[in-house]
């Protein structure tokens, strides 16, 4: 990803808007009693488009803003989303993305990873109550939602960040050369 001031501003706006929408909209709606969590999908899409560093920095920033706005202990969200974004970026650097299904599938898998990561951080800090098995259902449903949200987010971000993408294929096929006299 080619980082110009314009692109950095777009990235900041995307992360802030993503966190605000998550807290103000997605966390407060329920589909099958579960609220979608689009932040891991957003960070995965940024990692896939920008690479491991862009993914890690985006994840860290999104997590930090999330913790600040939730008035929660800082660092937990940053750590989990940083790892999520980094892994997505690493995938992009190691493998070719041949199928359009890869980004949404990766969003699904890494959302599962992020939700388990949030749980691991919480376990690390101590949980004093029994954990219901419904947690597993919630996490799996969140991952499935992330598949669909991830597809839309990836397509949208690709369009928004197009000027900065190095490997973006040309939109139009080059015109055939005109043969004079043919």
């Amino acid at each position: 990803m080619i980082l110009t001031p314009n692109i950095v501003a777009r990235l900041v706006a995307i992360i802030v808007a993503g966190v605000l929408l998550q807290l103000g909209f997605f966390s407060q709606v329920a589909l099958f009693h579960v609220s979608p969590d689009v932040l891991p999908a957003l960070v995965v899409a940024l990692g896939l488009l920008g690479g491991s560093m862009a993914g890690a920095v985006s994840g860290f920033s999104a997590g930090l803003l999330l913790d600040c706005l939730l008035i929660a202990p800082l660092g937990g969200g940053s750590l989990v989303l940083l790892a999520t974004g980094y892994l997505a970026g690493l995938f992009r650097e190691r493998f070719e993305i041949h199928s359009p299904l890869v980004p949404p599938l990766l969003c699904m898998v890494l959302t599962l990873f992020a939700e388990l990561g949030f749980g691991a951080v919480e376990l690390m800090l101590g949980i004093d109550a029994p954990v219901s098995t419904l947690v597993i259902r919630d996490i799996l449903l969140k991952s499935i939602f992330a598949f669909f949200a991830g597809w839309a987010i990836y397509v949208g971000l690709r369009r928004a960040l197009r000027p900065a993408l190095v490997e973006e294929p040309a939109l139009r096929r080059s015109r055939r050369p005109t043969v004079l006299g043919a």
Partner: protein
Amino acid sequence: MYRKQVRRRRAVLALLIVGSFALLTVTYGQGSDGMQRGVSAIFSPVQSVLDRALKPARDLVNWFDETFDAKGRNARLQSELEEARRQAVGAKAALAENAQLRKLVELDESGAIPSGYEPVSGRVIARSPTVWFADVVIDAGSGDGVEVGDPVVDGDGLVGSIAAVAGGSAKVTLIVDHSSAVSAKIVPNGAQGVLKPSVGDPGDLILEYLNSERRVGKGQSVVTSGWRGEGIESSYPPNLPIGEVAEASIVEQEAQAQVHVRPYADLRDLDIVQVLTGGSRG
């Protein structure tokens, strides 16, 4: 050149990881610090506007979810309605008796909100996205007189308590958060215990450490006990409605001294809540 780039990337990654752990270590258990207050102050108005703007869209999505749910609930609600009608007749007699007793002991007749508490209304403007935390952020903060530890209720009953406060917003830890523990009693039975959540299931609370000699039945109401000891007291005032006993098997009561409680408040769909400020803390 490539090696230098790799080294720089590793350094940035290490810095971010160390930064995350440092932040976690420094801020855990200390509530809100200056940075959070600042960020919260900047984004609170934006969140408030966004919350109002997105309410129709949220209601639309939630309508679909509730429609699926409503079909199954209909039959259960019909039977509950019949039961509630029967209980209402008994409740009127109990209320009359209660009023007489209150006069006798010269207690305040304030009703749902205990005396000495000043209710402050707040709108939920953010909610934790993961299943592991049951926190919401409301648009009332220290500027409105809200303090850490204040109980939070909605029209149905107890919702949680204030865990952290900023100028114009406050974090409410719901009673279904894993860190929550509410001293509660069953009425009219009088059995007391500690109400703890079942993480990930907002419709199920567990009332533990019950006195096994007092048998608890399904459908009995659970309220805050609001105990007072020498120098210490519960953060919740007494008799705030919490929920009703949803499952009370004899085996579970005898073996584990616990019953399952369903909260009255719909903790998945909170909108307007009231913070009971003031009180006798301190």
